[in-house]
């Protein structure tokens, strides 16, 4: 095995010269020292954005959904765009944790912890939107969950909107469990390093008493593999079910069987872009360059190139099928996307998603931090607009021309979108200070000693 391995020249997963103890020291440092100016700066901005969202949200609940730009026929716009966007972001975390694990890709070990955390926070950010968009979220639980009641009413199990409830709840629960199980040995490491009494107590409780016994690792590894194994079909099914929100409807531009694989590929694409943005910042701020190496980032760029091309292929195929089908409404919708009132959003989407990832064919661009950072931001903007284009262009011009109307997002729409980003970054930044952002035990198991 050794001989075969050395034939393929691979970069080391951890910079040479690091010992096991270094891993613990380096990764736990942000937990054990006071944050520096950089962290406070980012945190303040994030909290301010979140505060904007909360303020506007309170106003929304007081006055109703009318504060958004919604009308007839555009009953969904920014709300559902954000929902799909954030769920999509979450999928990259699960892919890195679960799918790369099943493919035995050792390089995932430096990035899976922050990616999984990103998933949890992204799903939280996503889950708010279906609740908020009901206008009266305090009633939402009654509408969504099948609980026995005096009216003997049940929910409609045949509706994709309800499938979403189960899919997203399951996704959140399983991702949380997977993340926490993965954290236990690392929390034990933090516990054993803790000098402060209160820290020791808190991390002792959180560690569940883990001590790294061989008999325990035996069961642990099996459970890790099981969770990875069930998370994989879960991630594929969740975004497929989210795509069914559109595909099951009969609207032109929505009612197409390409949606499930197209959405899943798009989710992985935008999710990796977000992970990349976060990792580039983390490795800089916390000095994790020996662990999150250029090799890791390059591999992620390759995955973005691949999924970006799948998404690009789906765009072209949709167009082709719209023409090939001969359906006048299908053809009209696609011409409308490219040339109608929302063409600006459409062309943002096309340049950001189809053209931008192509730069990653070139090795020097794949390995350049400024290039990949800007590319990841551009890709996320493009993917946000993709969902916006899908939802709004189909809704604002449906089958009946007399129903057509213009749609203009209001300031509340944009403000609450900003708020969801604020929420996401706030909780992520807090996570970075209290839990190890790199999976120490997995990195140690793949590094040379």
């Amino acid at each position: 095995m050794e001989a075969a391995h050395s034939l393929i020249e691979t970069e080391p997963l951890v910079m040479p010269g690091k010992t096991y103890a270094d891993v613990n020291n380096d990764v736990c440092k942000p937990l054990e020292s006071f944050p520096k100016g950089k962290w406070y700066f980012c945190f303040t901005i994030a909290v301010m954005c979140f505060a904007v969202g909360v303020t506007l949200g309170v106003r929304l609940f007081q006055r109703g959904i009318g504060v958004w730009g919604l009308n007839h026929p555009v009953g969904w716009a920014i709300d559902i765009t954000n929902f799909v966007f954030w769920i999509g972001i979450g999928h990259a975390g699960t892919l890195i944790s679960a799918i790369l694990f099943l493919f035995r890709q050792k390089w995932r070990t430096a990035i899976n912890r922050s990616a999984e955390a990103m998933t949890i926070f992204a799903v939280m950010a996503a889950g708010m939107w279906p609740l908020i968009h009901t206008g009266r979220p305090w009633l939402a639980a009654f509408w969504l969950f099948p609980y026995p009641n005096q009216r003997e009413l049940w929910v409609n199990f045949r509706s994709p909107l309800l499938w979403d409830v189960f899919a997203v709840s399951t996704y959140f629960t399983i991702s949380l469990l997977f993340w926490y199980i993965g954290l236990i040995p690392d929390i034990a490491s933090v516990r054993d390093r803790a000098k402060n009494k209160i820290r020791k107590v808190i991390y002792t409780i959180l560690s569940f008493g883990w001590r790294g016994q061989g008999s325990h690792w035996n069961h642990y590894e099996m459970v890790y593999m099981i969770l990875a194994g069930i998370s994989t079909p879960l991630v594929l099914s969740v975004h497929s079910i989210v795509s069914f929100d559109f595909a099951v409807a009969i609207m032109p531009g929505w009612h197409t069987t390409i949606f499930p694989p197209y959405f899943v590929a798009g989710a992985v694409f935008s999710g990796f872009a977000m992970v990349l943005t976060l990792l580039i910042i983390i490795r800089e701020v916390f000095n994790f360059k020996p662990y999150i190496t250029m090799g890791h980032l390059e591999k992620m760029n390759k995955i973005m190139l691949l999924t970006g091309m799948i998404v690009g292929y789906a765009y072209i195929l949709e167009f082709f099928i719209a023409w090939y089908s001969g359906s006048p409404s299908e053809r009209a919708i696609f011409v409308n996307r490219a040339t109608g009132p929302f063409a600006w959003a459409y062309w943002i989407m096309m340049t950001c998603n189809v053209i931008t990832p192509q730069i990653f064919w070139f090795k020097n661009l794949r390995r350049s931090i400024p290039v990949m950072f800007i590319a990841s931001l551009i890709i996320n903007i493009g993917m946000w607009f993709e969902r916006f284009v899908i939802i709004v262009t189909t809704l604002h011009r449906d089958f009946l021309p007399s129903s057509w109307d213009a749609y203009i997002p209001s300031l509340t729409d944009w403000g609450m979108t900003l708020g969801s980003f604020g929420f996401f970054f706030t909780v992520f930044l807090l996570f970075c200070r209290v839990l190890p952002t790199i999976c120490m035990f997995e990195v140690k198991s793949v590094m040379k000693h």
Partner: protein
Amino acid sequence: MSTEKGLLAIFDCPDKLLEAVKKLRAAQYKKLETYTPFPIHGMEHALGLSRSWIPWVTFVMAMVGMTVAFGFETWTSAFDWPINIGGKPFISWPAFIPITFELAILLGGISTVVTLFYAIKLPCYKFKVLDERLTNDKFAVFICATDAQFDRERISSLMGESQVEEIKSID
């Protein structure tokens, strides 16, 4: 280990620990436990541990989840209060599949995690940490004093052959 009295042999490298465990097992020591910061490839085999039985629980509970989900959907939609929605049949099984699948996974996943905690008997805060470096960069094997072969000199010499760093006595 219910009685935690014995010897803890600490190594600085997983390979040395693996070698030491194999030697101990060859010398008929049965009451062994390893303490490592990460799982070591080959250690379960060296310790004589059999494959974890947890996947069976996952499978059974996933099947239960699937059945409960499909059964509930069918009962509410076809028997308790059937409503004609879009002309779909009352037992519209294709439409029931997404939730069936999700609940299978949910129940399978939750039961797997709960079973893990049952199998490894955690959370448990009774036992103290034997050495703080064992979740960092040291690897150890604990030989319980109640083992039939327990003999301090013999253990020390066996561990010495595998370049043990330190042998701690745990009382």
